[in-house]
């Protein structure tokens, strides 16, 4: 962390919950809930990147979508520049949406195949009435240049581009309205390793240039390490560990974080590592285990873990962990 005197975090998420109702029976009654996000608290400082990591189904994408009100939260607060945006009337919140944007995971599914690149990137400007047609055209070519594409690409269609280039288009669209916060939902998971590094560097450059704040969602820790200032590890709808990046990688505390770290393949055939392989799959969020949600797969679980749910404890220096061992 830098020594800047920061007044308040750009984004504060407090006790965020999202329970999806499960309908069943003839009358479509609610028969249960999917506890996708179940009490998540974190904050993101201005100009910094908060990495959010976890396996498929742990709720990380839902956190991102709920923060942007793309899905309605069940409970909790999301404070953007101090204002609880979940409590705002939708009409007023809509005007703020330009300040918070999202880059989606799948660069194939998130671009409309019938729209040209110019239309895709220009659409947010039309919706937010942020400029005349002339200004829009100028802005679009400026954005294309920013993300490493060419102005003449405006008239081309998404299918003419490779995966990495499409992700650049998605990034240009997210930047069209000069947002303060950008949620990057697994922006590189669908890309080749060589293209991943191009996109990660681009995001890094853009952050420096426009003082962007990112929430960077990924399923592997090695990707977030390069871009994040803080990292939160999620498991089954809860944050199990939050720490400054270097701290998390040098001193992982939660057994789940340890397992995630050791799962990363090391590109060095001479380094044989002792791998902690997690058995089984993530349990269903419809019926989360009692006690610590990780206890069934944890190699250090005790009797206490099966009955008592651990709280998020502060270890100092911004390092928080929710485990009975600490």
């Amino acid at each position: 962390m830098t020594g800047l005197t920061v007044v308040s975090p750009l984004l504060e998420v407090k006790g965020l919950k999202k329970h999806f109702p499960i309908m069943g029976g003839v009358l479509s009654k609610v028969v249960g809930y999917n506890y996708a996000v179940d009490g998540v608290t974190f904050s993101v400082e201005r100009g910094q990147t908060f990495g959010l990591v976890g396996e498929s189904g742990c709720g990380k994408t839902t956190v991102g979508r709920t923060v942007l009100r793309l899905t309605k939260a069940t409970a909790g607060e999301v404070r953007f520049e101090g204002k609880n945006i979940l409590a705002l009337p939708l009409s007023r919140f809509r005007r703020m949406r330009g300040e918070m944007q999202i880059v989606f995971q799948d660069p194939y599914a998130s671009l409309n195949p019938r729209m040209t690149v110019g239309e895709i990137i220009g659409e947010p400007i039309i919706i937010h009435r942020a400029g005349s047609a002339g200004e829009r055209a100028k802005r679009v070519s400026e954005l294309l240049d920013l993300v490493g594409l060419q102005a003449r690409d405006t008239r081309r269609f998404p299918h003419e581009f490779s995966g990495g280039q499409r992700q650049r288009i998605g990034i240009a669209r997210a930047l069209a309205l000069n947002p303060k916060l950008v949620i990057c939902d697994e922006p590189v998971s669908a890309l080749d390793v060589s293209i991943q590094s191009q996109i990660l560097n681009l995001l890094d450059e853009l952050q420096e240039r426009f003082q962007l704040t990112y929430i960077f969602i990924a399923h592997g820790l090695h990707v977030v390490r390069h871009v994040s200032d803080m990292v939160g590890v999620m498991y089954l709808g809860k944050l199990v560990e939050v720490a400054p990046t270097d701290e998390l990688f040098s001193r992982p505390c939660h057994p789940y974080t340890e397992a995630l770290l050791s799962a990363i393949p090391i590109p060095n055939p001479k380094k044989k590592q002792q791998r902690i392989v997690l058995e089984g799959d993530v349990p269903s969020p419809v019926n989360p285990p009692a006690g610590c949600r990780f206890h069934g797969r944890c190699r250090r679980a005790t009797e206490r873990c099966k009955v008592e749910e651990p709280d998020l404890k502060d270890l100092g220096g911004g390092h928080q962990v929710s485990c009975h061992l600490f």
Partner: protein
Amino acid sequence: MELIQVKDLRTHFYTADGVLPAVDGVTFHVNVGETLGVVGESGCGKSVTSLSIMRLVASPPGRYVNGQILFQGRDLLTVPEPEMRKIRGNDIAMIFQEPMTSLNPVYTVGDQIAEAMRLHQGLGPREAMEKAGHMLELVGVPDPHRRVREYPHQLSGGMRQRAVIAMALSCHPKLLIADEPTTALDVTVQAQIMELMKGLKEELGMATMLITHDLGVIAEMAERVVVMYAGKVVEEGIVDDLFEQPLHPYTEGLLACIPQLDQPRGRLRVIEGVVPNPMNFPRGCRFNPRCLYSQEVCRMEEPALVTVGGGQNSSVRRVACHFGVAERVRTKEVA
């Protein structure tokens, strides 16, 4: 001893827009019981090479223009189709990237595993189903005899990939082709599948051709590596040598751009640009527009794949570059 030899394979696609030389003169071999890693970015011809070995390239538009694929003394490109059917799934089996799309949603997992055994080994339905259960057990699916009766959508991603592996291994193939077997999976599930494949290899002793763009996976799994770029082999060597001293600038770039845990944070190295479109491969060395060391000669002349001074175990080391590591001069600024 070589199990399969691919010699100067050229698989081209004849489309309305022109000829796409997706695989353009590829030579390599897989030894008995060995894991060979095939690396390269999307679009460099890895998958078409493996589909050619299985003779599964759709024709038209695909055509095997040239080359031989020698397997147990026979050229797979010329054996009659009924013969090929006996080889496919029996002697040579394949695992595809997406476990969801490579399983049929309307048949149970057990039916799909049993199918190959009924076809190739003439087992009856009951016996095949019994064996399918054993196969699921072998690949570590819990409660296998219940799972055989379930449909793909009832299984998690990791379990589906295990089922696909069980299917491929059901007839004890001599060669297993695994095309990006872990790419679509979570890192934790990837770790599980890698451990599983390592264990199975020791148990069953088959040869594996592992195709991936992730050198981390290669480092853990493979003994030898072939690096492909734009339809050609650009480098080959045993895994320790190749990671220790990559000879081709492309291999060097691929290695450098992996985010590593023991590296300082900050800008990652990249390989600028993208894999060229096969419709217009660049003149000279196909990698030259993206190469940090590209010279005049690289733009004019295509380098041949030559054998270079032995690494350890007198293993073959090949590279296709005009320059040795020492002679290279950086001509482009590194970002």
